[in-house]
């Protein structure tokens, strides 16, 4: 860990001044900038125009007049309800993931029982399970548990599929806590729970933040579980709400773009205020 951060810090500093500009890579990066930038610009620009203006101006022109009409239409068109559902699911997933993963990682690193080594290998294998392949049995299980068509039905499997990576990341950081600290707390008369609460949690704040972000992103972006485990319109989360907006805004492209943009807005704010945790969380997301 130290080695990694040392290199990345010293890299920029020790650059020799003789380096030539890399034109080919520069041109290449400029092309990618266009590929990423134009759609994002278009999405923002469409969403701020009235539909008639948008049709007159065409897809790439700057908006001739800026309006919040689409915003109002999306928010009053059910978005607030979807947002609330997504927030509930996300908060529940983060809380449950941390409440379950931290003690598990603690036991995996500190317990001497064979069970902890076994559990570690199981969770390692768990990284490989594709969630898509389990939707039919999950549908059956959730139905039998009388949970179909509830937010709980979305939360439970989402937490379960986020656990392997969460536990492995937390266990990795717990291994850096030195034995002396555990021993010192034991001498002070602390039991395992107090050690967890007063030593393990404060010492692994960084990984807890990263895992929390990862769990939040996973819940926020979840599409498949809500799709198959709920049907009540009042229980739609944002991603499913988007799907419905498409049908409703069949020809209202600006309205659709506003809806897409609004679902990403909270993540964008997180990107601005907590870029580091977000990137760490995203790294986890992508590896699923």
């Amino acid at each position, binding site marked *: *860990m130290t080695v*990694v951060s040392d*290199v*990345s810090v010293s*890299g*920029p500093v020790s650059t*020799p001044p003789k380096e030539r500009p*890399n034109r080919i*890579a520069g041109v*290449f*990066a400029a092309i990618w900038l266009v590929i*990423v930038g134009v*759609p994002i610009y*278009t999405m923002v620009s469409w969403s701020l125009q009235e539909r008639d203006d948008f049709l007159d101006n065409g*897809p*790439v022109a700057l908006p001739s007049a800026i309006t919040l009409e689409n915003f109002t239409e999306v928010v009053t068109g059910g978005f607030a309800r979807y947002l609330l559902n997504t927030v509930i699911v996300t908060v529940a997933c983060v809380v449950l993931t941390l*409440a379950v993963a931290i*003690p*598990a990682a603690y*036991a995996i690193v*500190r*317990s*001497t029982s064979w*069970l902890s080594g076994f559990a570690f290998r199981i*969770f390692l294998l768990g*990284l*490989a*399970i594709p*969630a*898509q392949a*389990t939707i039919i*049995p999950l549908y*059956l*299980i959730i139905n039998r548990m009388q949970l179909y068509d509830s937010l709980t039905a979305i939360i*439970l499997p989402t*937490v*379960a*599929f986020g656990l*392997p990576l969460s536990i492995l990341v937390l266990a990795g950081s717990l291994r*850096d806590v030195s034995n002396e600290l555990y*021993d010192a707390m034991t*001498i002070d008369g602390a039991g395992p729970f107090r050690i*967890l609460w007063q030593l393990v949690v404060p010492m692994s704040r960084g990984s807890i933040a990263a895992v929390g972000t990862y769990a939040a992103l996973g819940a926020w972006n979840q*599409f*498949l579980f809500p799709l198959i485990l709920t049907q009540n319109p009042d229980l739609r989360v944002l991603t499913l709400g*988007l*799907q419905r907006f*498409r049908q409703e805004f069949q*020809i209202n*492209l600006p309205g659709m*773009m506003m809806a*897409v943009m609004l*679902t*990403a807005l909270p*993540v964008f704010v997180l990107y601005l205020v907590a870029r580091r945790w977000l*990137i*760490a969380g*995203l790294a986890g997301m*992508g*590896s699923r």
Partner: protein
Amino acid sequence: MTATVRVAPEDGSDATAPARPVPRRPSRPATSRPSSWYLLPAALFFGVFAAFPLVLVVFLSFTSWEGIGDPALIGLDNWVRLVGDARVLDVVGTTLLLTVLGWATQTPIALLLGVWAAGPQRNRAILSSIFFLPLLLSSAAVALMWSRLLDPYFGLAAEFGPFQNILGTPSGALAAIVFVTGWQFIPFHTLLYQAAARNVPKVLYDAATIDGATRWHMFWYITLPQLRNTIITSSTIMVVGSLTYFETILLLTNGGPGTSTYTVPFEMYIRGFRSFEFGYASAIATVLVVVATAISLIIVKFSGFAKMRSTMEGM
């Protein structure tokens, strides 16, 4: 006091093997250790909603179930049908084609962008933060955004002639999926390569510069070999990811035109939740599990989780 004295040398020896928990030492006063009960909540969650469904999907593949009532055992019928199903063969072919095309386009672009973004200039940091914007959108949002951008009448596609009806032809729709998934996932892989490229020891380049190596030589003989492990990790994540694309297919092409962009997970979803042939869909899911697991085990084997973690640390 006695305890501290006794502990010190042990810690010294532990430092050489920091990755493993301290082995049991019965002679010394017991350090507080958590019992295995701390594992129980996580094990329950994971067992009930991830591990058990994996077993159940194999069982369901030997049953007939229409979504109501109980699944009825029908032996190997689903599997016999699967082996002779020309459409499943098509769907597997499409999935593999998308996987290969996705890998072949995403890897070089992400590699070059990552190496470029690892460079020291200030403007690269700013540009990189724009490059990563697609990561902020969910798969559903990306797919829906592009389905509107590629709208043949009002979208961006309408402005650029050859792409106007891109979603209307089988090869165009496949190309659109490769492009949109690339747009969405290249930033993630760029992050991996950027982190790895920053860790390539500077002295290697300095030495090569003294020897008069060209930039191309340095890339080919230093950067690429040094990134070997990251290429393996990134490629495996990419391949497993492409095998399980779902939102992009459902929301961008809905499998169309015709069935030309059906992939394995999409076919499974349609068979299950649209045709209510849950038994047959489970057989398709089992195939998906076997392929994805085989590839994921290669991730763990070749790259190891520990390295994955250090890649994340490097960000």
